[in-house]
């Protein structure tokens, strides 16, 4: 039973993953991975990852996507695009990492205590509400959620930044926020995933 359910979820994950990846121009290149490891060795953070970027594709091939989604790998991607520009098969690894992050959030698979999804969600809320990000708001909310004590540690730095005029306390809301809201609502109605090119 359990195995069956896991199997079903893997299928679902795989379907959504492929649909989204193929929607990226050149996304189908993921099929051409030759497992050479250029991505892993180009990655500045792979040493800290549970699975190297190369293994992410290997896991996808082996039908073990959910293992990757639960790992710390995707949250350590710093979007530096080194893997993407060096990949000899033209695979857009960074975009794949973004997609995996989205999947992990959507299917609620992110590791317990992983901070990155929290930041991303706060960031999105912030932007959706104001159209822009307020750094101070973001940081303080983040710390409240993940590490309330950390706020105390941050105070001296924040004060320094404030004194130097480098931090804005009151968030600015853009005038066209209604416009933004309409666009985003329309996007939601158009489906979460852009879907593959037809024809």
């Amino acid at each position, binding site marked *: 039973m359990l195995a069956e359910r896991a199997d079903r979820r893997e299928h679902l994950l795989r379907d959504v993953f492929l649909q989204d990846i193929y929607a990226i121009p050149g996304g189908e290149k993921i099929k051409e991975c030759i497992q*050479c490891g250029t991505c892993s060795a180009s990655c500045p953070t792979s040493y800290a990852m549970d699975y*190297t970027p190369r293994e992410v594709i290997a896991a996808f091939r082996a039908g073990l996507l959910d293992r990757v989604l639960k790992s710390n790998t995707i949250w350590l991607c710093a979007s530096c695009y080194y893997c993407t520009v*060096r990949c000899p098969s033209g695979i857009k690894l960074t975009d794949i990492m973004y997609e995996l992050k989205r999947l992990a959030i959507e299917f609620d698979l992110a590791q317990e205590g992983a901070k990155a999804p929290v930041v991303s969600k706060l960031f999105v809320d912030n932007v959706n509400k104001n159209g822009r990000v307020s750094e101070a708001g973001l940081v303080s909310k983040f710390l409240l959620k993940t590490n309330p004590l950390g706020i105390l540690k941050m105070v001296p730095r924040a004060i320094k930044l404030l004194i130097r005029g480098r931090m804005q306390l009151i968030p600015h809301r853009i005038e066209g926020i209604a416009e933004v809201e309409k666009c985003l609502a329309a996007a939601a109605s158009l489906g979460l995933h852009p879907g593959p090119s037809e024809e």
Partner: protein
Amino acid sequence: MVEKIGVYICHCGTNIARTVDCKAVAGYALGLPNVVVARDYLYTCSDPGQEMIKNDIRESGLTRVVVASCSPLMHETTFRRAVADAGLNPFLFQMANIREQCSWISENRELATTRAKAIVGAAVMRVEFNEPLEVQKVPMNPNVLIVGGGIAGIEAALQIADSGKRVYLVEKEPTIGGYMARFDKTFPTLDCAACILTPKMVSVGQHPNIELLSYSDVTDFSGYVGNFTARIRRRPRYVDEEKCTGCGQCEQKCPLSVLSEFDCGLGKRKAIYRPFPQAVPSTPVIDREHCLFFTKGVCRVCEKFCPRGAINFEQKERFIDVQVGSAIIATGFDLFDASRVKEYGYGKFPNVITSLEFERLTHASGPTVGKIVLKNGRTPESVAVVHCVGSRDNNYNEYCSRVCCMYSLKIAHLVREKTDAKVYEFYIDMRAAGKGYEEFYKRLLREDVTFSRGRVAEITDVAQNSSENGKLIVVAEDTLLSIVKRIPVDMVILSVGLEARRDALQVAHIFRISRSKDGFFLEKHPKLAPVSTAGDGIFIAGSCQGPKDIPDSVAQGAAAAANVLSLIDRKEVELEPTIALIDEDSCSGCKICIGLCPYNAISFDEPSGHAVITGALCKGCGVCVAACPSGAIEQQNFTNRQLTAEVEAICA
């Protein structure tokens, strides 16, 4: 007379029958005007298939035949011959291609069958207007042009010359020998390249049937199979090949040293030089760019010391025309420019070198007399060999260069043999398909080379700890362990891939050869005609067709030679009679066609006031036919009537 047409629909096993309803197409054909026989058959090109057609011709008195099967490039000749065997003129046969351009491109049986009917219909309507034609036969000139004096060209030249035919061997460089002359050892046997190559080079130089035209290139190639004319540019050596004995006095006395191209700039040569001591011909050349006489108007030392008076500063570039019946193009390859992979630091880090530079380093008569040393003269304590540089990479060349895995193993072996260095091989996949190759790989595994599976991501000199200080750090994932390794080494050897020569496009234009997507020359058929090209009488051999190792290049050289000799033995060649003809009565004498003909085959006959086509010069492009405002020109087997019939049948 009413024509009797026979139509044969081939199943080609399931190749056609899987997507085309062959029975239905045959049924459809039988309903077409003048079709008296229509059959479908499993393999029409087989003996029984051909017999069936012959029988029908004899017994049903067929006057026209249509076979719907594969591309005419595959079997047109086969069926023409069969038809001729049964007494019908071969040009009364028409082929319809329902495989390559029909059954293989579609999954939809209905659409493919409809399409097949259209194709067959067009052929049936056209064949009605086919006319009996006579194949033109012209004598085959037995002389052969070979372009490129690497191992493939050398092999071809010797095979042909040994059979008593005359060979013109054109080589761009001052000496023949190609890349092989620059290698130290050859894999997997580790025999010395020079030991097996130089005897062949000497044979070429001495062969009475080979005219070696080195330091030369072909600038124009015209004519048709059996009768080509090659224009060859002979660059001035400033040394008389007839007088020179190759004693080498001039080289010794020349006061000016420059970097040697043959040694990849690692060693020096003189301004008058032979690329290497065993060069063939042994006549040196003067490098005009550097020679003090040419640059400053002084010196002439070589002239003074030449015991034979062979130096001639007055030599000029000259052109010669040679008549040949066939040609073999064996122009070889270029090495991938390693500096394009910026993250490998070639050109930036002195001790990152290419595999060819390593060959020169380890070569007994190379710049270091065979010592493997760093730029500072010290012997390396650790060496990394990096596979797939520029190969298997969408950013550069997508294909596998085929030879690098094996030569990389050879490099590892030589380093292990000559130094105490630790050797690392970074590979993606070990490709050791070849006789004795896998065994060679095993041997290297036994020789304690460290193999690391994973492509190198970068080579850097930014140290992260003291063990990396002053070293080149090779960064790669060990994909078998999923660990990213940083390996500090003294020397990195980049196993650069092979690519089409920079001048391949130019050569392709001169010889009218097509090129494949990767820029290499395109063979007529990848499996069945690997050394032929689309142009009759023009063959290719060696790495100009795609990366090859020495055994394969030699095999191709010999194969091309066999093709050429078989052509020559026929004594005459048949030319397609698809030439243009002018109907003198309709010609208005407007002369439009004359300027259009690329072969100067059309002239104007003043007395009669109309244009005349010289059949032997016409190649049958049909440009004049389409251009003639009075419709006075027709192309045999591509008449307006025939083509219009096809158009009408398709559109009906």
